[in-house]
């Protein structure tokens, strides 16, 4: 390490770009590593961390691993998963960057991850923690349920498809609401999709229990499946039944199925071809992806002339986001409520994603800082197992592996519109309930606003999640 310092001698002061940086790496006595770190105030340290992170990311994007390594060393002195907000954020971002670097040695990466034990129970727990420690899901449930109740007014048979049936609270609330209907509750059927059978069993148990108490005729159909492999026949949608679909934070992973290199799909072609045509461009070599992606790809659909020559369905013949949405449309739901993260973490370059993710996760970490103690183990779990993993996915992964492809709700609105859905504006009453809930939640940082028929749930001014409701246009 020392030798590294000495080998570089730029005589002019202008060689060091970062004042901060130079200050950082210096110490009166070269022997003790950065003693003055301790003296940094939280704010200065935070600013320092931001700059280091950005610098490091730049190096990583440029491929200068040695430099990146040095900076990682720097950051690790300052960052900590137990520290203040910025320290925690930096810890997870640097881990993600390190993971990304490591992937350039695939063998090494695989070896290091080979003995990881995936604790399903912990993963399930962390989802529950996300539900409990934030209002986002609860507001989404309130909005979703209200949209469903309104759409199902007068219906005697209601079928709901939950694309991620993990939290019984949502449907328990709906059961309660339906039983209070003036015309009495409908016959209710819920089809829950999830990867883990245990989760579905638990959900079935809780919901059946609740339905029995309320004397509502009820059925729960579990479908154990990944969303991308979902067999729509298994959903058993009957013609003519009143169908509602609830999709909470699920659709973005489908974007990973779309090919990164070419998002130029002709929407017209898709529609004309009865939505069965898949456009696929050959997946590019993962390691060169970052360099080759063009900026404008992230800007959503731009019908391009050359996509008329659509390649035949790829060999994998699997879903992409459009075919999935089209298939949903094909079920003719009366209402479909979509909740997604409202941030663009799907930029084509690393830097874009990192910058955007910094803002979003800063807000999320701030939420926790404002409401949960630093010593809380639950907070740590959420930060590490939920946010940390998302950050790692956004930063370190590419191609089909990168599932956390959050995008701004505008993009989703475009896609849904293209797939034949018409926006159903959020009702006054739904907003009222959601607002009242948020007001009573007791943390004034959480805010809500409505724009163009969609609802955004924000922390301070930053919109984090957004909910929209749709019906299938014929």
């Amino acid at each position, binding site marked *: 390490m020392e030798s590294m310092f000495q080998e570089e001698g730029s005589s002019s002061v202008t060689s060091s770009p970062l004042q901060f940086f130079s200050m950082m790496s210096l110490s009166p006595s070269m022997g003790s590593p950065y003693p003055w770190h301790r003296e940094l105030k939280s704010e200065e340290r935070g600013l320092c961390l931001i700059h280091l992170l950005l610098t490091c990311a730049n190096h990583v994007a440029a491929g200068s691993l040695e430099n990146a390594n040095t900076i990682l060393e720097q950051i690790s002195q300052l960052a900590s998963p137990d520290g203040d907000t910025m320290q925690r954020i930096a810890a997870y971002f640097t881990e993600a960057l390190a993971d990304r670097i490591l992937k350039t040695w695939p063998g090494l990466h695989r070896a290091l991850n080979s003995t990881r034990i995936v604790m399903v129970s912990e993963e399930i727990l962390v989802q529950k923690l996300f539900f409990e420690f934030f209002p986002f899901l609860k507001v989404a449930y309130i909005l979703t349920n209200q949209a469903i109740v309104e759409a199902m007014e007068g219906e005697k048979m209601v079928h709901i498809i939950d694309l991620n049936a993990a939290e019984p609270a949502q449907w328990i609330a709906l059961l309660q609401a339906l039983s209070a209907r003036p015309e009495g509750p409908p016959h209710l059927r819920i089809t829950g999709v999830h990867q883990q059978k245990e989760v579905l069993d638990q959900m079935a148990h809780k919901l059946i229990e609740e339905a029995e108490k309320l004397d509502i005729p009820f059925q729960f159909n579990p479908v154990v499946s990944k969303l991308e492999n979902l067999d729509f026949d298994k959903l058993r949608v009957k013609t003519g039944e009143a169908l509602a679909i609830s999709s909470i934070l699920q659709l973005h992973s489908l974007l990973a199925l779309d090919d990164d290199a070419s998002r130029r799909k002709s929407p017209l072609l898709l529609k004309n071809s009865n939505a069965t045509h898949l456009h696929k461009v050959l997946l590019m070599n993962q390691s060169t992806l970052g360099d080759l992606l063009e900026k404008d790809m992230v800007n959503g659909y731009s019908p391009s002339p050359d996509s008329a020559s659509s390649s035949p369905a790829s060999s994998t013949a699997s879903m992409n986001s459009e075919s999935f949405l089209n298939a949903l449309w094909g079920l003719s739901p009366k209402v479909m409520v979509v909740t997604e993260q409202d941030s663009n973490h799907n930029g084509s370059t690393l*830097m874009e994603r990192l910058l955007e993710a910094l803002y979003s996760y800063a807000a999320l970490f701030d939420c926790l800082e404002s409401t949960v103690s630093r010593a809380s183990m639950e907070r740590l779990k959420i930060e590490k197992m939920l946010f940390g993993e998302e950050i790692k996915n956004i930063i370190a992964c590419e191609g089909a592996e990168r599932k956390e492809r959050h995008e701004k709700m505008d993009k989703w609105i475009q896609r849904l519109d293209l797939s034949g859905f018409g926006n159903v504006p959020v009702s006054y009453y739904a907003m009222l309930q959601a607002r009242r809930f948020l007001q009573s939640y007791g943390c004034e940082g959480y805010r809500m606003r409505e724009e163009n028929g969609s609802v955004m749930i924000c922390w301070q001014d930053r919109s984090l999640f957004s909910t929209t409701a749709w019906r299938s246009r014929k």
Partner: protein
Amino acid sequence: MEHQSPSHSSAPQPPPRKKRSLPGMPDPDAEVIALSPKTLLATNRFVCEICNKGFQRDQNLQLHRRGHNLPWKLRQRGSNEPRKKAYVCPEPSCVHHNPARALGDLTGIKKHFCRKHGVKKWQCERCSKKYAVHSDWKAHMKTCGTREYRCDCGTLFSRRDSFITHRAFCDVLAQESAMAQIQAQGATNSKAAAVVSSPPTPPLTPSVSPTLSIQSSEIPENPTKKLSPTSSNAMTNSGTSTVFASVLASAATATTSSQSPSSSTCSFSNLMSNLECPNATSLSLSTPLYLSTNNPPHYSTSNAPALSATALLQKAAQMGASNASLRRGLGLATSSSYQCVNISATTTPKWNDRVKQENQPQVDSLGLRLPCGSGGVTDVMMGPSTPFVGQPMTRDLLGLGMGGGASSTGGLSALLSSFGGNFESSSGEGGVHHL
């Protein structure tokens, strides 16, 4: 609870209860009767066939007929059970003129006709509200002026539901409740009323005090007197909202220890007991049920000294943006290198000193081949304060605008560019991998 068949449609809990027809959806077996307005409004519809005396009610007529000492045969009015009757409104343009939307109650149709199509003969003196039906007027007189709801923004309401609706959207209230939240953190059980918190000095008019006592019967545990009358009636109007919120809130409470007192209204006490809510006690619906467990325990204690991460990012971006222009302004090297100088006016002197001391001599021993260009490091102390040029940029940073994806990173990108554009082109030392 055992249920015979899940497909059995919902029946009210005591089975042989006579079901009340839904308004506007009459019993299909009912006999539809169309009365003329004159007959409808006639006060004495029931006429004794013997002496032609008119009575307002059938019961009164029966009583009167007894007095005629009728022989047994003639005493029976009709052998059959009176068929259920449904009445249509005589006004042709009315919805209820259609037999399918007939009303099942004679009194009901009379009142309806008067209210909708009649002349408002009765007027309240206090608020000059007019009524066509005498009983409506009487009912109003009971409550007019007795209960007043005042929002913190100063608007006065006589009706609970309009008051609640207003409050949900009142900006003033939102701000104040935020403030009150912070203040209320100290108090242990203030959660219950924190929702609708107004500042302790009761904006409620004195006339509300009887209201409060009424409230207290509904709300046995009202820890503070700040509780505004938001309870049960609101909930019956907005049944679903409570349901959702209460379920969600209670579901959350299940695993933690905070109290989430449940409501006293019957259906919702069921709800509360069903969910694993510990120590459910009675309380007004709206407020506590929305509470989730981890309601802000540490509201700002740990935050007060430290900037939030969002604020830090903002600051960094501003510095990045401003530094570029600053340096140009100062005639320093163009390829803007980042100057961390003015973190804030509150930067510790120590830090500044250090910056001064360690400035020149040791920079070059940094030893990192960071290809970035000029570092005009010389002029560390830039001046009293960093001109925060980026005010609009700041806003953009936070992605306030829709689709502000690009703009949200504007500031930090500026920061990045202040590092010099040479990063990307660097080929670095050996072992370069394009990542």
